């Protein structure tokens, strides 16, 4: 009995969080970054995927935090976890192939799903140095599927990112730097790649053979051509399935009453 909310009952962050949550299957092992991804996974854990196993990069394995941690290093991560250890464990488990799904963010994404979190502009003369990679490339290299949650602006959906921090479906082969399919480079470690980008405009997926991004669903109120115009590359809009499913009232209740009552990551929609 899932009653979907009306547009005025939820915000964009709610929609993203719920769309992201639906990418998670039950029984999956999920590796989550800080912020919205963390809320999305905890939402899945509290709805359709009670058996999902959550890994936090800092060393919490099969975590079930009763309260939303503000980051993966947070003391809130440990409570209820199967094991609290460290990064060597978390990344070893990932490289070993345990991870079904990674949840990540990014500043820029290109048509192949390559993501940049390192710098804006030329790396050697950056306009803006960002945080750097963190575990973004690692989780993305090792997981079977990866979901990115991003703000949608035309400057962020580019033909080629300034710096490939995290590998998409077609990546650079060094030393030359020519683009090749990810499969060619990763050998037996190839397990998949970015499966969805959930932006503030829509949900995007990838043709695994061409490696190219396509539009899957539009968020309510957005049209495919509008969304294509929000990309610097020629976005494939031929495979659109319709509108992104709105949050249910139950999902909204869990987000705002259970997971993030303090609006740390997801603001409440003002009534009125």
């Amino acid at each position, binding site marked *: 009995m899932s009653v979907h909310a009306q547009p005025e009952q939820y915000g964009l962050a709610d929609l993203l969080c719920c769309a992201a949550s639906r990418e998670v299957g039950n029984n999956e092992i999920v590796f989550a970054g800080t912020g919205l991804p963390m809320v999305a996974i905890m939402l899945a854990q509290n709805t359709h995927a009670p058996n999902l196993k959550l890994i936090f990069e800092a060393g919490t394995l099969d975590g079930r935090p009763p309260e939303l941690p503000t980051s993966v290093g947070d003391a809130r991560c440990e*409570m209820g976890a199967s094991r609290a250890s460290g*990064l060597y464990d978390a990344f070893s488990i990932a490289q070993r192939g345990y991870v079904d799904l990674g949840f990540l963010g990014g500043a820029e994404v290109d048509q192949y799903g390559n993501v940049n979190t390192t710098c804006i502009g030329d790396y050697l003369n950056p306009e803006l140095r960002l945080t750097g990679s963190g*575990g973004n490339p690692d989780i993305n290299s090792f997981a079977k599927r990866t979901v990115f949650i991003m703000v949608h602006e035309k400057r962020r959906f580019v033909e080629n990112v300034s710096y490939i921090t995290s590998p998409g479906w077609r990546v650079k082969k060094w030393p030359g730097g020519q683009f090749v399919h990810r499969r060619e480079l990763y050998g037996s470690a190839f397990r998949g790649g970015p499966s969805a980008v959930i932006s503030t405009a829509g949900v995007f997926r990838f043709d695994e053979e061409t490696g190219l991004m396509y539009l899957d669903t539009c968020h309510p109120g957005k049209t495919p051509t509008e969304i294509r115009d929000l990309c610097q590359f020629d976005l494939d809009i031929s495979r659109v399935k319709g509108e992104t499913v709105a949050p249910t009232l139950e999902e909204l209740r869990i987000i705002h009453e259970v997971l993030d009552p303090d609006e740390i990551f997801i603001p409440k929609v003002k009534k009125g």
Partner: protein
Amino acid sequence: MSTSKRTTLQHAAEIITDGSRLTFSGFTIWRRPMAIVFELIRQHRKHLHLIEVQGGSHTEFLVGAGCVDIWESCWVGHELYGKYGANLSRKVADKQIIVEDYSHAEMMFRFAAAASGAPYAVTQTSLGTDIHNPEYDMLGRAGLRDGKRIAKHKYQFTEDPFFGAGSQVLIPAAKVDIAVMCVQQVGEEGTVRVNGQYYSDPEVARAADITIVMAEEIVPEEYLRRNADQNTIVSFEVDHILECPFGAHPTGMFGRYDVDGAFLKEFYGRTRTQEGFDDFANEWIHGQNHMSYLEKLGWPRMLNLKANSAMNYSPREKKGGK
């Protein structure tokens, strides 16, 4: 034991000489050895080469204060309380600092290799990214790859000869002179017990030639040795110890106190410019010592951060507010 490992905050900072290759305990904004970091800034330490699994607030303090020439890591910021490292960003733009980028797993595996005495590690992470762009070998560009203190290559590619697993990235061991740790408990002989996630502390302590441990409390060594399977770092891996309550503030410590989000937010907001940083340092670091710093923070603030001992975090702390 005949020789004591005890030292003071001032002496601990003095062990870290100009130009040291330095690393730390903790994770982003948790269990960073801030009291020693502040003392390094007071002592005007220069030319540090930070090699970190990942950076955090302590990095931003050291970089802002001009202590750091080289930063070799993968991430810097204040998590929720400051989305990137404004001081590092500014110095990168001004070319006042050399940044060598690896991935997070690469940095972790580099420390694991060093801790295990291996010259390098083998991994398949981050293939096809610009982390392996040969143009972006910044220490190589700067002519610093002497093959002694700094590896001859940033990385090397090879093929797996055993199972046909494909391309492998070889990454050099993270060789560091000194690790500065901040933990809950250390014994008189150096045994460390970390509660909660230990992050990359065991590898970092073993990788370093000298390990300094600042703890919330120095406890009787026998107490820790009653449950040897709960300890994290071996006595003989630790060279110097000191007790410094709230030594991680404004970063947090599992079971003891939360991150002071408001403090970090203010730091991030005020230190986007060098003038802002200098102003902040004059207010909170220079002319202070650890006790006057705590006095300045005051009881209400610190009691609000104090962890509930059943939950291991503070149920009062509003995570820095909105």
